């Protein structure tokens, strides 16, 4: 985790006092840009920085032009870059190889020559932010004219690695306010949030990771209670890890006087899947909603089409997490869950209404169903499909 490296802690400890002491907004801008670029350069390396700079330059230039066709082209470039860097091997190995192994091998070897060993750092976040930006400009919203503003929107260091995925309409005003003045309340609340994030990540998530890494390989040997405990640990680990990371990002931004929206809102208290996705990785789920689901027709289309759109959107959401079949399946699993959740009351007739009524009256029941659904999903998320299925079966089999 980048935020817990000594380099980051030492660098941010040197940067923050200077940022606070400088009162001029212009100098603060310069400081923030230099620090963000240093941060990105240090962790991404030249092979990771160059593609992002090229992509950012194209996006900025197209945005300024306000040309709708160019914006569409820019979106295509961002999507292509994301697919190229992140999904080339996946497409060759998983999609082309079963149909034509020799072609897949040739393509994979060719791409290995061009592609870096690993995708540029945070390419998914960069791409999603660029797509959002160009999409909004294409819709007619005012672009970012100032280069320094665009650089900060792109390279703002707290949210660079794991989000939240920013919206420039919210970020730029928040940034301007932060650059003008930082209050002691900003700093103290930001620091508390950072501390909470580190606690979640280092004390809770990392311990759970050790526990899971030790127990998962011996899952069949565990008692049934221990297996359920491992499942709970897996569910809590991903939450503490990811929300801890988001808290650190939001906390550091707040320390600079810049408010960025929260990314998690107690997702494990959700009483249905729809609500879960309103509380889990909010910046990603709203992005998918705004830039995939709604453009596909949203809720304006018929039930069948709506279900199909939800499945498609969630498949993309799954693949966004990583180029592997289990992520795709995890996305589909949630898509199906969401489709069932939004249609069962009508499609199941009286039984559906009865079930819906029971869930409304006994929220513990709906909460338990939701948490179970989500927890089983994490098995798909973390383990290869056969292993995940085996683990699921073992959860119900007494040793």
């Amino acid at each position, binding site marked *: 985790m980048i935020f817990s*490296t*000594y*380099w980051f*802690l*030492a660098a941010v400890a040197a940067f923050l006092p200077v940022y606070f002491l400088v009162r001029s907004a212009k100098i603060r801008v310069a400081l923030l840009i230099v620090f963000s670029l240093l941060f990105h350069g*240090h*962790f991404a390396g030249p092979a990771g920085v160059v593609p992002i700079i090229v992509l950012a330059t194209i996006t900025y230039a197209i945005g300024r032009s306000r040309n709708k066709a160019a914006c569409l082209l820019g979106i295509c470039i961002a999507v292509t870059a994301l697919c190229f860097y992140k999904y080339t091997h996946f497409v060759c190995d998983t999609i082309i190889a079963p149909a034509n192994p020799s072609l897949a091998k040739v393509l994979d070897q060719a791409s290995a020559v061009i592609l870096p060993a690993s995708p540029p750092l945070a390419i998914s976040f960069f791409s999603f932010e660029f797509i959002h930006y160009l999409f909004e400009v294409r819709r007619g919203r005012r672009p970012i004219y100032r280069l320094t503003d665009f650089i900060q929107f792109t390279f703002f260091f707290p949210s660079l690695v794991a989000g939240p995925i920013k919206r420039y309409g919210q970020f730029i005003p928040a940034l301007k306010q932060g650059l003008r003045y930082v*209050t*002691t*309340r900003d*700093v*103290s*609340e930001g*620091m*508390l949030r950072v501390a909470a994030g580190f606690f979640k990540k280092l*004390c809770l998530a*990392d*311990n*759970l990771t*050790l*526990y899971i890494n*030790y127990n998962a390989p011996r899952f069949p040997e565990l008692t049934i209670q221990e297996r359920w405990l491992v499942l709970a640990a897996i569910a809590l680990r991903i939450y503490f890890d990811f929300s801890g990371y988001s808290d650190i990002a939001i906390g550091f931004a707040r320390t600079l006087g810049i408010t960025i929206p929260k990314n998690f*809102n*107690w997702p494990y*208290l959700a*009483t249905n899947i729809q609500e879960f996705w309103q509380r889990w990785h909010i910046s990603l789920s709203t992005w998918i909603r705004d830039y995939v689901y709604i453009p596909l027709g949203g809720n304006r289309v018929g039930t069948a089409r709506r279900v199909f759109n939800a499945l498609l959107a969630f498949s993309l959401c799954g693949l966004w997490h990583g180029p592997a079949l289990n992520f795709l399946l995890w996305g589909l699993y949630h898509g199906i869950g969401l489709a069932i959740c939004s249609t069962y009351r009508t499609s199941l007739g009286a039984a559906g209404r009865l079930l819906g009524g029971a869930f409304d*009256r*006994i*929220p*513990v029941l709906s*909460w338990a169903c939701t948490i179970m659904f989500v927890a089983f999903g994490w098995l798909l998320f973390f383990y290869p499909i056969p292993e995940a299925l085996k683990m699921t079966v073992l959860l119900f089999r007494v040793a």
Partner: protein
Amino acid sequence: MASKHHSIQKNLILQPPSFNWMRVRLNPRAVLVGALIGFIVCSIAGRFAAAHNLYKNFLRFHCYICPTSLFYPTFSQLVSLAQDGLQSHQILVIVGGDSILNGAGQQTERLWTARLQSILGDKYLVKNFSFPGAYAFDGGYFVSEYLHSLGKKVIYVTDTNPGTDPTMGFDGIYGYLYDDAIWKGYLQKNKERELALSTLRQSYRKPAEVLSDREIGAWIDGWSYFEDLWTTVGYKYAFTVWTMRTPNTPWQPRKRYVDNLVPPPEPVTVRFQNSRRDVDFLRKTFGNFIEMRGTECIRRESEFKTLESQLALITPKSLRKDTLVILTSSCPNHLNLLSPEERQCNEHFYKDCKELWDKAGFRTLTYGDSFTDEDFFDGRHLSNEGGERLADLVATEVRAMSGEEKR
């Protein structure tokens, strides 16, 4: 009633706490000043902890107080431990090295260093700073070098497979102790060691940023002493990391764990049953240095040259006469599984390596010839009996090194 019950339940289960009370009650300036004061207090507490010996009734770094269970003793703690109970007339015998000298295979009450202490008597103070998986010139060595620089009389006893790169200790699992010693000012960087370190890192092809990050951590710890504080808290009050060694009581302070994991040795007839891997390792080890051509053993000169150049880098020349290196060997059972030609090459390898170590100015000791299978707990580690015999041999050497008796 039902709706009231419903709403209460809903409030209990579904409403996330807002933490608004924190926002209302916390004075921002107080929070910041508090954080600063807290940091300074922790740093002072860390320095205080570093200056006092943490490990009471210490015998060895067993698995609950060493990095294999994610417990990382600091260099300051090793220094405090080394000096604890040391009187001005005493010669300090620091034992470094790996699990063989750590006594894996020996029960606490029959640990070889305890016997060494009883043989040597009050004129010496023996401290076992060996760790499982450590190299010959690891944490314990750096403590002895530091105490040498303070003018203390220190003898360093360590062990190694004769052909192992002796510079490995600067950057292994315990390499953090080297960085710790440098950044806390106990040791000065020297040209030879830095050269060894950079060569080693290049050979590993380790990513530069990982290494520099560990160094930055050691630099921060050099003035904040947070590792000392954290380790002290973990040892005395509560540990904060779950480990597979402590699955059921991860939060228990490490001082409560008893060093009792060594099982009683199995009968010799079954003790060496799974020896194939060990024997293959043995073949590989001497095979790196000696090539077998029919019945002939041919030296690989380049390997010996490399070892010679590595030996020149590990420690200042002035300390070598006070360093006893035990060149460990396998049990007779394993050696007997080699062909006569292989055995001959293995002996050739030991003899030639020993010559190199001697030539570099170290005092060396080999024990392979005189030990029987009863002396081994497994292929390489010594049993209670073997430990006692080793203690006798080492005691003679240590006395000779201190000028007490002739070799």
